[in-house]
């Protein structure tokens, strides 16, 4: 019984990291309508930023986090302005943008590998790795509780932002109908700027948490991206709350799945779910019907 409870808790923790990746990804997808696959490398770059600033340079932890989130946001904006926007201006199709974004991911993955080596890196912020035992035979580290709390707070803030603020409403307007939005005077390039800033800042937060929770490796970007993307597809890629819920479903499926399957199949579970959803329910559980299926 305690094994099951522990697996559910682990599923929630994994799910909340996937959800942070997926939320940013899906925010960018819904406003820009193309697959920003390089989002995964934003997460990894943020993780290495923490390693560099905190572990190597000895910057205070909270300052490190702040700088990392800021730089992540700017990194995302730079990708949009320097690569995607010029491509869009010359009329490239979504498929070309997707291929370019895979190129960006591979490029930075290898730059990180050259700069930091291919071995795994530890952040070594030990204050948060203390385990706490809960009734029912569940143990969680302080960090894992922090992950659950922070991601919960961020999701509520993101939802409020999308629903209540003018910028959030404009974003949803662009996501809903780009032409109509520009007719009523919404500058969609400015909205895209903000979607990349906010989405990549979320990737920064995810990167910090991943860096603390797991070991860092340059190659983890692809895997994280597939997980975030799978979560987004399960929940509905063009609908941010859906992609968050989908990520929790994925986290649960992985952690409950390895109760019956060998633990090596964790990734296979995610890949199979991704493929099945793309084939049979490409708009996800909660996604809007206007998805570009069969268009």
């Amino acid at each position: 019984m305690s094994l099951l409870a522990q697996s559910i808790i682990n599923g929630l923790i994994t799910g909340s990291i996937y959800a942070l990746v997926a939320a940013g990804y899906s925010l960018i997808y819904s406003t820009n309508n193309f697959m920003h696959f390089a989002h995964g490398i934003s997460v990894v770059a943020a993780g290495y930023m923490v390693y560099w600033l905190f572990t190597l340079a000895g910057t205070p932890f909270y300052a490190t986090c702040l700088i990392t989130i800021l730089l992540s946001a700017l990194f995302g904006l730079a990708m949009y302005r320097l690569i995607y926007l010029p491509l869009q201006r010359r009329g490239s199709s979504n498929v070309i943008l997707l291929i370019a974004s895979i190129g960006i991911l591979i490029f930075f993955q290898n730059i990180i590998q050259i700069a930091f080596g291919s071995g795994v890196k530890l952040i070594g912020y030990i204050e948060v790795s203390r385990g706490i035992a809960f009734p029912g035979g569940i143990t969680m580290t302080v960090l894992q509780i922090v992950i659950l709390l922070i991601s919960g707070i961020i999701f509520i803030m993101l939802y409020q932002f999308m629903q209540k603020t003018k910028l959030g409403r404009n974003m949803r307007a662009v996501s809903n109908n780009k032409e109509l939005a520009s007719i009523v005077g919404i500058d969609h390039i400015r909205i895209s700027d903000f979607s990349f800033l906010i989405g990549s800042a979320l990737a920064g937060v995810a990167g910090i948490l991943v860096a603390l929770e797991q070991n860092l490796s340059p190659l983890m970007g692809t895997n994280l991206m597939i997980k975030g993307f799978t979560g987004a597809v399960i929940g509905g890629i063009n609908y941010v709350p859906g992609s968050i819920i989908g990520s929790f479903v994925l986290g649960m499926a992985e952690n409950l799945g390895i109760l019956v399957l060998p633990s090596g199949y964790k990734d296979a579970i995610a890949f199979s779910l991704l493929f099945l959803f793309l084939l049979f329910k490409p708009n996800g559980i909660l996604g809007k019907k206007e998805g570009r299926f069969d268009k």
Partner: protein
Amino acid sequence: MIFSAYQTHIFILIFIYIILVVSLNLALGYTGLLNLGHVAFFGIGAYTSALLALEGLTYIAAMIAAGLFASVFGYLLVIATDRLRGDYLAMATLGFSFVVYSLLLNLRDVTRGAMGIPGIPKPTILDFTIRTNDQYLIFVLLVCAISVFIMYRIVNSPFGKLLEATRDNAVCLRVLGKNTLSLKYKAMMISAFFAGISGSLYAHYITFIDPTSFYISELILVLTIVIVGGLGSIKGSIVATALIIYIPEVLRMLDLPSSVLGPARQAIYAVILITILMIRPKGLFGKVDLE
């Protein structure tokens, strides 16, 4: 011996990649079948051929089996993704290569997982065993010439014109009473078949394979070559393969440590890919744009 040992190695790789790239161009360029999972066919071919040869099958039979098995997967991929369009199709085909990768990694009883398969025998053809790289070079050159010739004949046949018509205007073709779905199946299966053949040549040349050889970084290389050469141009694919495999060899003159050399090569491929997409997405000899 005409070339240095290292040059021979590069030439062998170039000929193996020419088959792989031209086969992708057949599907992606000529037929307009978006496929970001082509390296999966390459991997399936490599594993099939290696495992069968280790079981004692003669090389030619193992190579043909590798092509056929890969083309079965090509058939499955078309069944699975026929209803998808645009970036959903792109992601589904990419997802297909992830599924194959994780199967290679996890079906440990068959593929030995991350440990890979060592000691793949060098090909033996009619009692003659290919031992040196020079002999292997001649062998790959032959297989490459035959494969490219067949694919060249295919795209220039009436059947090839139908494939191009599928790409340009499928609706029109259906009005004319042609079965476009069956054309797609055939194109993808031919494409996968030759990818499987090149996978087999690769496995028996390197003599060791593991799942990481058939993953996203390999995909970037193949896509870069096809796009640089140009969609729908076999000549472009051949020229681009030679160019792009050769360019990073400049790095060797800088005397970089091997831990930097590999990632630097990958980074260069990525830069070439992004640059060509931004400057000239049609590539060197391309006839069509990507979707």
